[in-house]
């Protein structure tokens, strides 16, 4: 993942350590430098000196506060021992020692040969830590010099993620802008989505046939967005069902989804002016277990013979079992999920499939309210940005590489930085 060439790192640190040695003030308090202090831990004593394989210590050991965290991390970096080589290396690893508040040294980690960084995540704010790293040979251990004590710092804003924040604000702003525009009465065009155009017809069919409608909100709990999307769609669907006076049945695999589902359907019936037609029995909890739930829903499908099935939410391996069984009883099926791996099964076995994004847009689309439609327009701004970034990015990176044009390469780097998440 890292785009830095590996070789530049030690060099960078050597230069840095020189700088800090001569201008100690410019590093601030957060970087403590390797200082020569005698270390009194025992190197291996049992083996006579003649048989010991003594290796060189690591150099330029730096301990620095981890930037942009809550003060729970210290980063160590060093230049590996010169005996640490790829072939026939005499170094078999490194041990990292920590001294907390001038106490006893404590070994906190063992690392493989070739390592030159360590990230200590077990520190606390308000304490001073210093470190040394010892190089291991088969039977000896050579400690490095010790770093000056350092205290981990807390930061209040993660500046590394500033680009993410700005992009999120741009996108969120676009969504809110179009919601507001629509609220003020401007007409916004939204194209037809086949699967959602069919909702009315599918419910009407159930009414004509006098058979129930089955609504499956996926198998995950309320802490998944796809379940939330399913419930928002349920609100719209239940409203139409209440108008048509058809039966809806919703078996669920999570207790919380049951509660939320009841709340949703009840509200829709109230909005339709028929609160008396609502009953808690419309939503039933079955079991949390994936295939137990599937076994029961399959049974319900073949016994109740629903005219219409909605399979919306997060689905896993059961997607095809449910969709095929629904298909075998002749139901019209409208499915949708944001799990790419399950989409092909729905495409194969259902009449209409909401692909990824369409699932999240469905409730806004079905509501027909201008402000909801506005949010869809805001999403399109995001897509436009994405498409522009992809186009410009690929062109500049290709041209920049081909002719080695620096300013074009700079555009690429800038663009990649804007979209980097770390």
């Amino acid at each position: 993942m890292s785009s830095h060439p590996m070789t530049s790192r030690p060099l960078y640190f050597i230069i840095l350590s020189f700088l800090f040695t001569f201008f100690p003030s410019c590093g601030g308090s957060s970087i403590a430098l390797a200082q020569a202090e005698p270390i009194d831990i025992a190197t291996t004593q049992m083996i006579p000196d003649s048989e010991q394989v003594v290796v060189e210590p690591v150099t330029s050991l730096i301990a620095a506060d981890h930037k942009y965290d809550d003060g729970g991390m210290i980063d160590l970096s060093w230049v590996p021992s010169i005996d640490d080589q790829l072939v026939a290396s005499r170094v078999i690893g490194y041990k990292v020692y920590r001294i907390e508040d001038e106490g006893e040294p404590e070994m906190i980690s063992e690392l493989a040969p070739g390592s030159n960084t360590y990230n200590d995540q077990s520190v606390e704010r308000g304490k001073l830590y210093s470190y040394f790293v010892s190089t291991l040979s088969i039977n000896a251990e050579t400690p490095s010099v010790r770093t000056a004590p350092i205290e981990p710092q807390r930061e209040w804003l993660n500046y590394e993620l500033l680009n993410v924040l700005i992009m999120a604000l741009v996108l969120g702003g676009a969504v809110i802008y179009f919601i507001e525009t629509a609220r003020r009465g401007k007409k916004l065009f939204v194209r037809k989505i086949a699967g959602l155009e069919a909702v009315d017809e599918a419910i009407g069919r159930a009414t004509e046939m006098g058979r129930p409608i089955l609504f499956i909100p996926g198998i995950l709990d309320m802490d998944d967005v796809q379940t939330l999307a399913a419930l928002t769609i349920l609100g719209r669907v239940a409203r139409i069902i209440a108008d048509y006076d058809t039966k809806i049945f919703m078996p669920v695999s999570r207790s919380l989804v049951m509660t939320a589902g009841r709340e949703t359907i009840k509200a829709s019936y109230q909005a339709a002016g028929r609160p008396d037609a609502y009953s808690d029995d419309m939503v039933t909890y079955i079991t949390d277990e994936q295939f137990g739930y599937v076994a029961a829903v399959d049974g319900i499908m073949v016994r109740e013979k629903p005219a219409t099935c909605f399979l919306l939410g997060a689905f896993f391996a059961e997607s095809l079992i449910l969709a095929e069984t629904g298909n075998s009883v002749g139901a019209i099926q409208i499915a949708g999920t944001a799990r790419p791996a399950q989409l092909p099964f729905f495409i194969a076995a259902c009449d209409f499939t909401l692909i990824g994004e369409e699932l999240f847009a469905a409730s806004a689309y079905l509501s027909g309210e201008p402000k909801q439609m506005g949010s869809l327009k805001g999403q399109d701004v995001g897509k436009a940005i994405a498409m522009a970034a992809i186009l410009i990015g690929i062109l500049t990176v290709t041209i920049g590489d081909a002719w080695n044009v620096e300013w074009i390469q700079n555009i690429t780097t800038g663009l990649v930085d804007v979209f980097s998440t770390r």
Partner: protein
Amino acid sequence: MEHFALWLGGFLTLGIFSFLYKDNPWYKLTEAIYVGISAGYFVVVYFWDNFYSKFWVGVFPHKRLNEAGELVAGVEPDYWLIIGGVLGLLMLMRLLPKVGWISRWPLAFIVGATAGLWLINYFASFVMVQIQNTVTPLFGADYNASLFVIVGNIVVAVGTFTGLIYFFFSKEHKGAFGSAARVGIFFLMITFGASFGYTVMSRMSLLIGRIDFLFGDWLGMIR
């Protein structure tokens, strides 16, 4: 006991398979067993893992027993958890018709937390990272890519671009835009076809395992 376990396994396995023929009492029986057992199992696991280990032990750490049944001392209680407990209790208010509306508070909490959390997580890992990954040189990093790879890179770029056009909501799929959207659908269809073909293979081995149980472990017809 071993005979019983094998026959039980055979009985349950065939009961589920009988559903392929049609719905029948045998399937209904296995289904009833399955639903009852699994619901009970999950209540138990939730109770011990979530309620006891996370909530109870978190709030009253000095009541915790170790494996040997002795009290464990010296752990600070985490009173934050009580908020979770209160929200849970509010949820139960549904059972009382007069104050049932208060159960919407924990629901609102869950919806807010889920929406906020996933908004930013999906944005970072589904939007930002994917855009960043698409920005790769078409001809390979050092101009040493084979024709095969170059065509692949161009296909990835075009496919991602037109795929996004397909998802555009605020423009009718007409004219040049419509053609691009159609190309996008083609790419989506290849994706779906490929995933389907890929999975057909792996699903068969599950069935082989079950059939092997029936004829091998149970009836001893194959070794």
